[in-house]
């Protein structure tokens, strides 16, 4: 999988690159509009991460270029502006998703995973991961063909962790994924632990190996 990161803040671009390289993606970084355009014209990418405010031009214009070149890449806009109009105009121009800074890398990774899956394997709505089968349409989970009954939040957690396989997601990233924008209103995210505990119990009762690892109580990882 190839990923292009168009972001002028090199430290952030580096973090994103670190994150996706670890998950087996090939990452390239462009720090200006011109560099981004050049790379887009020359190579094919599975997913492009676009900052809106770039030296030399707007990410939205770059997005228009991508769409007019009929590139199949999925595009996720990463912007410091969280105004609704920006979000709507970005999605209207043809972005597949929109993420506001600051964000958790695991959230970005889950979004990228979802965009690529939708683009590349459009008909496939079942994710098979180790002995777990996740049906995205029916929102059901099977382990060794045994149905595991999960709550909505447990299902979301499982999908999020699987999307981030072998990557530690921080407790606050999980909290934000579960509670949306309201999660960072609180500094205590202990409730994530309760959901993780239930999820682990239900999976192991169904005969699933213990893939969910706890990292110093700070984060969780799906390990395979």
């Amino acid at each position, binding site marked *: 999988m190839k990923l292009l990161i168009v972001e002028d*803040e090199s*430290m*952030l671009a580096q*973090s*994103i690159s*670190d*994150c996706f390289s*670890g998950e087996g993606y090939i990452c390239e970084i462009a720090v200006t509009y011109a560099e981004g355009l050049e790379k887009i014209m020359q190579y094919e990418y599975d997913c492009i991460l676009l900052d809106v405010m770039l030296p030399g031009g707007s990410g939205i214009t770059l997005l228009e270029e991508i769409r007019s070149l009929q590139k199949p890449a999925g595009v996720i806009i990463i912007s*410091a*502006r*969280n*105004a*609704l109009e920006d979000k709507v105009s970005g999605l209207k121009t043809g972005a597949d998703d929109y993420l*506001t*800074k*600051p*964000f*958790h*890398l*695991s959230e970005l990774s889950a979004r990228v995973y979802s965009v690529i899956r939708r683009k590349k394997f459009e008909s496939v709505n079942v994710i098979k991961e180790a002995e777990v089968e996740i049906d995205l349409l029916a929102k059901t989970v099977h382990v060794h063909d045994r149905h595991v009954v999960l709550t909505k*939040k447990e299902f979301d957690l499982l999908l999020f962790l699987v999307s981030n396989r072998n*990557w*530690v997601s*921080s*407790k*606050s*990233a999980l909290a934000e994924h*579960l*509670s*949306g*924008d*309201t*999660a*960072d*209103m*609180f*500094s*205590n995210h*202990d*409730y994530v632990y*309760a*959901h993780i505990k239930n999820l682990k119990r239900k999976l192991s009762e169904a005969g699933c190996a213990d893939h969910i690892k706890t*990292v*110093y*109580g*700070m*984060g969780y990882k799906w390990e395979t």
Partner: protein
Amino acid sequence: MKRLISRTMFYQAVFSSVLLLISAPFFYGLMQYIYRHQTDETLTHRSQYFVSNTLPHLQSSNIAEWNRTNSDQRISLPERPFYRPFFCDTFMIDSAEMETEPYRILYTPIRIDGEQYVLRQRLSLLEREDAIRGIVGIYMGLLVCLLAGLYLINRRISKILWKPFYDTLAYIGHFDIEQPDLHKLPDLPIIEFNQLNQAINSLIAKNSRSYFNEKEFVENAAHELQTPIAVFQSRLDVLLQKPPFTNEQAATIQSLYVAAARLSRLNKNLLTLAKIDATNYHDIQQLNLNECLQSTWSNFSDQAENERIKVAFFLADDTMISANPDIFELLLNNLFSNAIRHNYSNGSIEITLKGKVLEVSNTAIAPELPAEGLFHRFTTFNTQTKGNGLGLAIVAAICKKCRWGIRYSYRNFRHSFIVSFAETDL
């Protein structure tokens, strides 16, 4: 406090009254003088007429006869000799009115048949009482007319002339720097009012500019901060992938996550506050309050359960309001997080909907909060709870923007925030 017009009127009335009072004796004196002068002239004429026309034909035997037919003229022997006519005032009984009346008398020395006589001619003078009564009457009438006239003119003047002033006053009274009236105060033909309007226009322009500069600054600063916060958080995420950590390192990373989350929330809140006024929430929808409350609460239920806070809904029948769903959710988010954050373990939250009035009440460690400054930015009353002091400011800004009522109340150890979606209910 008095109106300017009543002040003006007071001085005008005092001046008019004093002027009339002082002028009355002069007027009386002048009138008396003129009347006496006129009387003297008439008497002199009569005496000259008598001397030239009647006297030549008069004989001493006719004097008694003549005296009888002329009531106001009398010829008699002089008590003492004199050679020039002279005037004198006297009171005489007027037979018709049975009153003593003032008279002017002209004594003229005449000769009839070589004998010395005196011609006494009299003319009634203006009676002092009558004169004073007349003058007082006239002056009273004058005063009443004058005051009434002044009052009417002043009132009219204040209505017409001062109208621009009252317009300006109303304009200033309704001025709200957050939602400035775009039309300026007009140019006026009256110099003073025009100066006033220009001064106010430039004052408002200056203040609005600095207000919006400040707002823009906050917005830009918050935007610029987003990227470094994103870098901070993403580097932490990367760091988290590289165990092993000592317990100390793990604790440090965890506290950095907490700090990053607080920073991010603070920044988001600043942005929200700076943008609420400027943003047009065009998309107005019919919202079912019950559904909104319950679906927004679902984002908080985990947090509440974790703190073992019990929540109770007291909802009315389906209440609909017209509002923008985003701004409404923002309001509920801030009210709910406030109710949880300031609560204690095993506390409770009650969400009550009565008609179009929403009440969110919670138990808390803190005693009753002072109403003063409660909705101001960065007003925090409790250092233990980790709010950033912007939640209630956002709530207040939203209510102001949407013209909803908001108030705080404290009963039975419960803090309540009450939002009225129909302005008049509160």
